[in-house]
């Protein structure tokens, strides 16, 4: 039992903005004072900020992509963070080993991180890796947008089969929701092509990205899954692509859900370029922000680049090839049977490079211009850079002064190609806490996360920082430093890190979503048998992950 005393609490979901109050913890949950009696550990949080543990809803922390990244980038694996002892050895510069991922999140006050693209056939590998990440709660989103079953059922307009298949696939992969990466485009890549517009036809199936996205939203909503469709748009990384992004968002307009968005569009920075070539490329962030702010069924995350090393790794195999041709950097291509593909390319973001500076500015524009209950803070780790630099993004969003200082060191191209310099908006601390805690929890549909109300998971971060006295707009250096390492990180009621040092190793849960009771499997049985015998390299009976194989599974039954 814990009694966190006299802290200054910011808890956006419960409308608490910098109020001095006490928080009580029992059995891993936040409880009322009356429930805590006897042997209680008191934490003095006087003059300290108390918030829910951070929630990274979109990062690449497990599965075949990050592992291939580690293999092909030995230079990333030379930074020693922790020598083995009480804790496991942890290494990595931006690409971290599995223990390092958990440890670095914990040190920063983050307590949940979700893998945003799980190749379904690689589900077992993904879960083995998630099981090697200590400290945090986890989940994985399998990718659907190029899976032959999906393309076939969309072509046949057989919604019952599509819906049944989604429930089957999420159960088999022990996944959390429906991720869609460049729908149709990765299948086209199998023949050397791509789907750059929503109306490009997918070779061999006669369907379009427009139809795939619409159908997947429709059936995800019919199943009323915890999380909405999570979309990596078509035409990523191309000048002029912001229009494709807005068009994709409009596909959600006929759907609604009173609990959450019906479409989450991810790492939007990579899909927010105006212009017609890399010579006249500019920012489409303002137009995207205008659209997202005007509707209440879309959320996004930033995909903010951080200057320095990064590794591009996405299920968007054709884009990764384009990036490789553009930069000349190493390239690895992955094929996941009839489900899709992926690619990996090292990248470094340089402040003086006009394109990199433009990407950096667009990410910030999105973070500033989109309402704080619709944009989640992310780097799309490790695509935009390390998650350990989230405090940089937080500080930048809150301080125009810091942005002015940073603008001096970046390519002047951003001045003419983006509106960043003219934005005087400064997000408040309340909003930044919302963008890193309560909003990602709501986007994922997890009521017990991202807040400090009674019944919430006791995932808590305490920072050496008094929001009542520190001026976040002027004292940005303090803000950056303070959010880098928490004074206390509490996971499920246990203190796991203090002042940037690990205290205790704990193993978080792996959430997965079970919607199988909402469908009749009979509808797709014979299709499954046929597709597995014809096209897969493994037998149907060997496909998937059993719950008992996962270290700490948490099954969420969709009612």
């Amino acid at each position, binding site marked *: 039992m814990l009694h966190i005393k006299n802290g200054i609490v910011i808890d956006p979901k419960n409308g608490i903005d910098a109020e001095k109050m006490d928080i009580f913890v029992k059995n891993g949950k936040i409880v009322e004072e009356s429930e805590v009696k006897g042997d209680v550990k008191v934490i003095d949080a006087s003059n300290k900020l108390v918030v829910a543990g951070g929630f990274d809803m979109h990062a690449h922390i497990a599965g075949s992509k990050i592992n291939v990244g580690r293999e*092909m*980038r*030995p*230079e*990333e694996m*030379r930074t020693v963070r922790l020598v*083995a002892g009480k804790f496991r050895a942890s290494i990595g510069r931006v690409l971290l080993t599995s223990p390092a991922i958990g440890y670095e999140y914990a040190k920063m006050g983050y307590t949940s991180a979700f893998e945003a693209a799980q190749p379904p056939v690689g589900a077992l590998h993904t879960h083995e890796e998630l099981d090697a990440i200590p400290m945090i709660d986890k989940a994985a989103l399998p990718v659907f947008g190029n899976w032959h079953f999906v393309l076939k059922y969309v072509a046949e307009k057989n919604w019952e089969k599509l819906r049944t298949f989604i429930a089957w696939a999420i159960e088999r992969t022990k996944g959390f929701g429906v991720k869609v990466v460049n729908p149709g485009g990765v299948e086209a890549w199998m023949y050397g092509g791509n789907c750059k517009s929503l109306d490009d036809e997918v070779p061999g199936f006669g369907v379009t990205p427009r139809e795939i996205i619409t159908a997947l939203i429709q059936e995800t909503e019919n199943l009323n899954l915890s999380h909405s469709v999570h979309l990596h748009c078509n035409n990523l990384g191309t000048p002029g692509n912001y229009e494709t992004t807005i068009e994709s968002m409009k596909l959600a307009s006929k759907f609604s859900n009173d609990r959450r968005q019906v479409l989450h569009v991810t790492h939007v920075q990579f899909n927010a370029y105006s212009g017609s070539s890399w010579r006249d490329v500019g920012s489409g962030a303002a137009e995207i922000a205008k659209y997202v702010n005007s509707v209440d069924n879309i959320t996004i995350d930033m995909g903010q680049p951080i200057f320095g090393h990064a590794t591009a790794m996405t299920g968007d195999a054709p884009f990764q090839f384009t990036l490789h041709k553009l930069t000349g950097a190493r390239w690895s291509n992955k094929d996941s049977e009839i489900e899709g593909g992926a690619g990996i390319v090292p990248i470094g973001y340089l402040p003086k490079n006009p394109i990199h500076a433009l990407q950096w500015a667009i990410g910030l524009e999105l973070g500033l211009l989109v309402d704080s209950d619709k944009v989640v803070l992310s780097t799309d780790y490790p695509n935009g850079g390390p998650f350990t630099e989230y405090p940089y993004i937080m500080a930048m969003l809150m301080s125009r002064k810091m942005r002015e200082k940073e603008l001096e060191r970046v390519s002047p191209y951003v001045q003419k190609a983006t509106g960043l310099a003219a934005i005087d908006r400064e997000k408040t601390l309340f909003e930044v806490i919302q963008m890193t805690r309560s909003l990602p929890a709501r986007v994922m549909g997890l009521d017990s996360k991202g807040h400090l109300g009674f019944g919430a998971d006791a995932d808590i971060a305490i920072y050496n920082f008094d929001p009542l006295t520190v001026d976040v707009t002027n004292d940005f250096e303090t803000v950056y430093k303070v959010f880098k390492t928490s004074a206390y990180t509490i996971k499920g009621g246990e203190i796991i890190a203090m002042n940037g040092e690990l205290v205790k190793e704990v193993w978080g849960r792996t959430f997965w979503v079970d919607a199988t009771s909402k469908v009749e499997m009979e509808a797709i049985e014979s299709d499954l048998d046929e597709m597995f015998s014809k096209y897969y390299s493994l037998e149907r009976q060997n496909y998937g992950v059993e719950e008992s194989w996962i270290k700490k599974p948490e099954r969420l039954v969709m009612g």
Partner: protein
Amino acid sequence: MLILKPKFDFEISVEAEITPALALATDEEISNYQVYYGKDKAKLSDLFEISREGDDAKLLLDGDFSKVKWIGARMDEGEIVVKGDIGDHCGAYMTGGKIVVEGNALDWIGAEMKGGEIEVNGNVRNYVGCAYWGNMTGMTGGKITVKGNAGNYIGEKMGGGEIEIMGDTGDFVGTEMKDGTIVIHGNCGFVGGDMKGGTIKIKGNFELVPGFRKVEDGFEGDVNAGGKGKVLQL
């Protein structure tokens, strides 16, 4: 001058990032200087007999140092003399000063060095002056001279400076080389794959990869990498 002698035959690797600057430290600092014996931390005095002669910035390594890695890494001035053999990564990243190895050297000698001089009287193994795996550029300055033979991968991704091998070398000389000079007085295997710039001069026999074309004074390539590197007969 600081003199180090191994106290016993090392069974496993010692990692000791020692530079001539250590000779200027106090006796206590030298004795307690942290190194690794395998995965365990050790004091310099646990593994070596330490003595001094004069007070100049010079190291004399007396005995078999073939299991000792990272000697002279990142050094910027002063001198190191190795009386016997030296282990991996000797002189890696160095920017100045001089290392003389009287015996043989193992892998990665002068890797990514920027300046200074390395002389080896015996043979060296692989990766002389190379880039570490995954990095873009190998040695960019200074000179490495080997009186004996060398193994494979000499000057991979080299961006400047000079490597001179008096004997023979193996395959993959100057792979992805960008600038600088490699001189080989003996024979060698494949030369210049994906070479972009710089010069390789060879006295003995060698094999060119197919991406080179004959020019007036020798060969130019690798055309597959759009390169303008030169391979010349000495």
